[in-house]
């Protein structure tokens, strides 16, 4: 298949709309490479090109959708017919509909590195092999590496609609990750390191290896500790995980349907005054940066928490219509899905100090290294929060004994109000979040 003009393809399909029919077409094309290294060899090398097309039909508030994984005319024509047919079975929704151009100009960002296309297969392989070698060589207690991975992708997409949306977007990413296994003869512990950039030149393999090695080795000898109420410290990566869960409860789909513990609390203080949180996909430093959202509206900055006060929810065009406001440009989607709502590039308002300074300020507590069972232990409707954890005790501001097989529990509501320290060292996570270390008081630690 020759490289089709995505924008023209989307516009051509929109041109097939019947009178009175709302039609939105999203098309995407991506190429990707994944190299997995293990035992000094390439375990697998994957090279791929993918296509996607998603067609949303809206007729009198009835929504139908169909998607396909190829641009073949017969498949695309089928998808359009299916989307139309599907719309006839939906019930009319007064808030359903396509996004309308809102006049907000797109940020002049282009998170695309032309250099990626010129990177040779040999260099990609070398990056994965070198990462595995560096991880193994870093410490005698590293007994193995489960896998060291180099991956990259270059994705382009276009969206067009009968309401006059016409947008294109593109992004490149490259990442390195490694999972190290440390062993003291009695037990094995794993540690994970990852880094992400727009192309391989932006990656820091030494840092990835060091992170995985540090995390695996410092858990050697870990054991459960007695149950207690503790101050929990999250490094920037784990804080980003928690804040991502919180942001999901601030999304229009959950909020307008009464499925969020924060649904009725707009304008109220819901968090510690130390905590500020916003979403801003126009910040080119974020891996989630993109000029437009999943409905083709310009990305923009939305303050969620300011000094602990809940300022806004995130919305796509449908949930915004229902809430009686305008979209915050927070539609997220692949070509194969209907637009949802989500944070695209969360950012914490930084406080002061790096992780060590936060530990010093807290004095005694529990530094969480990993949280397990987030999908089963966090109820985003009730706010109940209970996850498995490992990490290290903190005593007098210094790291002490390693801990495993414990849980930490609270509610999302209490975790936010109990934040007692916000670090100042902003670190960008692969999820797109710009995060800092956080300390949260009075969390129930369950152990032996």
């Amino acid at each position, binding site marked *: *298949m020759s490289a089709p003009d995505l924008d023209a393809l989307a516009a051509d399909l929109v041109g097939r709309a019947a009178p009175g029919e709302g039609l939105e077409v999203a098309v995407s094309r991506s190429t990707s490479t994944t190299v997995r290294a293990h035992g000094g*060899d*390439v*375990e*697998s*090398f*994957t*090279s*791929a*090109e993918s296509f996607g097309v998603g067609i949303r039909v809206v007729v009198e508030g009835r*929504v*139908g*959708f*169909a998607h*396909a*994984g*190829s641009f*073949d005319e017969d498949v695309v024509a089928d*998808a359009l017919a299916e989307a139309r*047919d599907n*719309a006839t*079975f*939906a*019930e009319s*929704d007064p808030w359903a509909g396509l996004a309308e151009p809102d006049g907000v100009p797109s940020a002049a960002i282009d998170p695309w590195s032309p250099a990626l296309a010129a990177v040779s297969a040999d260099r990609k392989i070398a990056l994965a092999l070198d990462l595995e070698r560096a991880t193994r060589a870093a410490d005698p207690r590293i007994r193995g590496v*489960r896998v060291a991975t180099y991956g990259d992708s270059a994705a382009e997409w276009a969206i067009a609609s009968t309401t006059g949306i016409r947008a294109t977007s593109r992004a490149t990413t490259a990442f390195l990750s490694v999972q190290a*296994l440390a062993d003291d003869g009695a037990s*094995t*512990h*794993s540690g994970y390191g990852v880094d992400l950039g727009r192309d391989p030149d932006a990656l820091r393999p030494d840092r990835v290896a060091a992170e995985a090695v540090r995390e695996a080795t410092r858990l050697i000898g870990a054991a*459960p500790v007695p*149950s207690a109420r503790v101050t929990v410290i999250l490094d920037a990566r784990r804080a980003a995980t928690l804040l991502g869960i919180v942001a999901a409860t601030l999304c229009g789909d959950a909020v307008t*349907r*009464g*499925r969020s*513990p924060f649904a009725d609390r707009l304008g109220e203080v819901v968090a510690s005054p130390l905590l500020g949180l916003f979403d801003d996909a126009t910040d080119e430093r974020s891996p989630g940066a993109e000029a437009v959202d999943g409905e083709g509206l310009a990305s923009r900055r939305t303050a969620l928490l300011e000094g602990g006060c809940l300022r806004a929810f995130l919305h796509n065009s449908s949930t915004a219509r229902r809430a009686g406001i305008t979209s915050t440009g927070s539609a997220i989607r692949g070509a194969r899905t*209907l637009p949802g709502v989500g944070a695209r590039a969360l950012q914490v308002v930084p406080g002061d100090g790096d992780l060590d300074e936060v530990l010093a300020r807290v004095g005694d507590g529990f530094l969480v290294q*990993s949280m*397990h*069972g987030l*999908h*089963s*232990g966090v*109820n985003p*409707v*009730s706010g*109940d929060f*209970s*996850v*498995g954890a*490992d990490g290290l005790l903190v005593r007098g501001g210094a790291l002490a004994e390693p801990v495993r*097989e*414990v*849980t930490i*529990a*609270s509610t999302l509501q209490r975790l936010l109000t109990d934040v007692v320290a916000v670090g100042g060292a902003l670190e960008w996570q692969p999820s797109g979040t710009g995060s800092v270390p956080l300390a949260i008081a009075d969390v*129930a630690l*369950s*152990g*032996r």
Partner: protein
Amino acid sequence: MIDHDLLRRTLEVALGRGGDFAEVFVEDVRTSSAGFDDGRIEELVTGRDRGAGIRVVVGGGTGFAHTADLTDTGLAEAARVAAAAARGAGPGGRTVGLDRSRRSDTVAVLDPADVPKARKVALLQRADAAARAAGPAVVQVSARYGDARRRTVVANSDGVVAESDRVTTSFSVGVVARGDTGLQTGRESLGRVAGFELFDDHDVAELAERAAARAVRKLAARPAPSGSLPVVIASGSGGILFHEACGHGLEADLVAKGASVFAGRLGQQVASPLVTVVDDGTMTGEWGYLPLDDEGRPAARNVLIDGGVLTDYLYDLVRARQAGRAGTGNGRRQSYRHLPMVRMTNTYITAGTTDPADIVADTDHGVYVAQLGGGQVDTASGDFVFGMTEAYLIEGGRITEPIRDGNLIGNGPNALAAIDAVGNDFAMGSPGTCGKDGQGVPVGTGTPTLRVPALTVGGTAA
């Protein structure tokens, strides 16, 4: 679905730079779903995805490419890319004969594609009405109907050509209830490798009533206890315990990399003598039913732990070749865009002899878990967690008050060795999706009622 001669030619191109093994996996998936939320039929979605994944194995390395272009030229190009990625240096020219033909036909009686969409959306309305009938505390109901037909052909340089046609049908209901204590949720799901006849045997109204009753009951829940307690796990959804506590650790790829606590322990007592763990892709109709795996190998009933003794691991084709043994029918992939790896099918523990009521009566103070949600395991340390979505206190041998959602945490080998009661009431649990290295596949789990004398309950109460 695709001309066998084209598959054969593609394999020969894939082996053009030499190589020990080549495979073409062709997939054509059609999905349809309908969602109900907030009092209305919200959206119907139809999907179509077809393409091919081609891999070439050279020594311990694999080259893989996939394409949505199933023409002669599209497949040949993907085969050349896979061969280059495998970095073979040998001569090509090997010929392939496809003479080991296998086939697995759909077991669906009523193909969902032949069912009018109106009948599918009527199920959603029926579920909504049944859930809302549970009372004014029910404030939100969502329901989802889904079906999929996945047709695959896998051909490889060993001469195997295996065609598979798999139809699945599923339904789920989620209910939100509101009370003085805030919001609570209840969820039930149903899914089988079957057609629309699924609903002849299962009433979605009943499913919705169960989900609603659960959400309403949980409004009275108090904070879960924290600390180490005896835990009685009800039959059915508790099977996730074994999926996490030992299933993943018995996957040969993780074992070979030393990333499993069960590595090197074949023949050893790794669990209580009460425990026999089986992975079984032959259970017709179950969510993990896989008569031919995604590498064309027939499913089997594989006994992994027998009376507490570790008897075998799970294998895919590559790991079995490396180990010089036969596979176990556990090579699976999410789609043609993914490489196969070792995965579970239906994993369960076999029934014991104890009356489940006696297990509760014999527990002085602990937690009774009526429904488990998902879980996660660190296979290297064996530490696992899984979420309680309906649980109660056990006081004086009786099930008493409901407790709020939370996670349980334990260590696989320790928990398996400690199990001290296994009931006679085996049941399969809800359909699940197992995630590993970014790929999700459908799996089944099952268990009788059982007791673990000490698991850490991750609550907030003292």
